[in-house]
């Protein structure tokens, strides 16, 4: 083994790397390509066999989906509302929390920071039972509020922004603003927030996407009215329905409709997203 390895030139290793990367890229993209192709084919065409080129039924499938039994447009709108509000509130208040820990010296600074880090990993599922009982008592079942408001306390978003703030927001800047007579709220909104924009943008995207994709909690809260359900719940209902009765072209179109908005946004912003993954994930 060792001897063989020594014989491998940089050129050979590079070739192996490209071949493996090509295979892996294929494995990542193949499914989405199939989805794209199949969403443009009719039910009859899909039954006839596997094809690699698109068909001509995209518009027909789209119309079929919109006129179908599932309130897909409502689902899209609900998902957009929930994900946008969640992202905005979560990121604004996480920045505020990070600012409180970063910009001030107070007695409970270290214990509170440690506390937030300690609760970072508690999964929402383990408190779901008590959460649903509470929501029922508050009369908030089938409302978006229990999906949006809890995102204000988001330890992972907080941690990322706190890490980012350490490099982006020098204490001298805050001091200068105080000497100029700015209030603490103004300092946060007019100085800290604008400086944090690159970090905030990354977290806006991540929070939006994770809310958009979330299935567990919305499925427990939005139970009664189909028109108030978000896209992941509609997908689950599609799976639960009698599958053989469905037009497969429309099924693929519905899946594509849930997946591709995020793909398009991702491709436009991938530079920031991929760069933002590693920052703040592991300390030191």
């Amino acid at each position, binding site marked *: 083994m*060792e001897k063989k*390895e020594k014989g*491998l030139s*940089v050129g050979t*290793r590079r070739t192996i790397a490209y071949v493996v*990367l090509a295979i*892996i890229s294929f*494995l*990542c993209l193949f*499914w989405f390509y*199939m*989805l794209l192709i*199949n969403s443009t084919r009719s039910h009859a065409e*899909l039954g006839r*066999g*596997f094809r690699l080129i698109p068909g001509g039924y995209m518009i027909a499938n789209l119309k079929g989906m919109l006129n179908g039994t599932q309130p897909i447009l409502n689902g899209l709108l609900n998902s957009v509302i929930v994900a946008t509000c969640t992202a905005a509130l979560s990121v604004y*208040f*996480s920045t*505020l*929390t990070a600012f*409180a*820990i970063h910009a*001030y*010296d*107070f007695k*409970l600074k270290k214990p*509170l920071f440690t506390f937030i880090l*300690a*609760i*970072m990993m*508690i*999964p929402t*599922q*383990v*408190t*779901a*039972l*008590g*959460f649903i009982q*509470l929501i029922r008592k508050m009369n908030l079942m089938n409302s978006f509020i229990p999906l949006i408001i*809890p995102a204000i*306390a988001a330890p992972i978003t907080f941690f990322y922004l706190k890490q980012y703030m350490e490099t982006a927001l020098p204490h001298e800047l805050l001091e200068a603003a105080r000497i100029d007579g700015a209030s*603490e709220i103004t300092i946060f909104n007019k100085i800290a927030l604008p400086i944090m924009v690159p970090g905030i943008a990354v977290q806006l995207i991540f929070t939006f996407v994770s809310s958009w*994709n979330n*299935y567990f909690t919305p499925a*427990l809260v939005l139970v009664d009215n189909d028109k108030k359900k978000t*896209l*992941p719940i509609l997908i689950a209902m599609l*799976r639960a329905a009698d*599958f053989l009765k469905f037009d497969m072209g429309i099924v693929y179109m519905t899946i594509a409709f*849930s*997946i591709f908005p*995020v*793909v398009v946004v991702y491709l436009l912003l*991938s530079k920031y997203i*991929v760069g933002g*993954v590693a920052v703040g*994930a*592991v300390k*030191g």
Partner: protein
Amino acid sequence: MKNGKSGTIVRYNRWAYIFLIPFMVVFIVFQLIPLVNTIYNSFFEHYMSGLKEIGPNFAGLANYGELFKGGDLLKYFGNTMIMWILGFIPQILVSLILGAWFSDPSLRLKAQPFFKTVIYLPNLIMASAFSMLFFTLFADTGPINQLLTGLGVFKEAYSFMSHVGSVRGLVAAMNFLMWFGNTTILLMAGMLGIDTALYEAAEVDGATSSQVFTKITLPLLKPILIYVMITSLIGGLQMFDVPQILTNGSGDPMRSSMTLIMFLNKHLFSKNYGIGGALSVCLFFITSILSFIVFRINNAGDN
């Protein structure tokens, strides 16, 4: 005596507490109270029998006894772990190799942004829609079966959904696809943080690339590897969307792909508060122990 300056600093610092109010209030209302409530529920007999609500009656540890009786819990724990491991092993191996290639300056790989964009893409896909996609693609009359029978690999359509190995394999494959890009980027960041002088010294000594990898990169990467493994394990214990949609919540065949959270979800929907609470508490303790380890790793650098 208090001078003017420290007085104003104290006055400023009061704002820290004000700014922390939203986080703390929301945390207490929507996480702490539900957690306490969940633990409280686990000690009470409380469930629905048809439309009739039974309880709540104090039951001590009876729910925990009920939970562990019959071995279902262990079976679902086993299912969850098997599917996690099946996805995690290829994930960590591929991520280590890709991370090493991306961070190796002598390879000078071109189109790196393209490859990173592609491998990270599945992570952002809605897990439930991705799972639904796999369900349709791997259905008995789906395109994968059409392709494989067309190529003569199978004589007749293979029923992926009715074999234990293929259902678990599909769940693991989806988890692998969704997470290896994320892991690659984390490991690569760790590899780029290793002092290049070590690599130069190894090169002078005539070490091969595999020796450099096993003798320098891996040992120095150990903290990040442990971090990745435990965070992935915590994520694995929460495995839900993919097997839930793929099997329509049944965990079939014969509940061999039923995960712990799918089990919890069933109890939540049938309003089995007692047993559901006991299961939540068990999951809470397991993830707390794992989180504590992550927490220690993250803070190791500070001490």
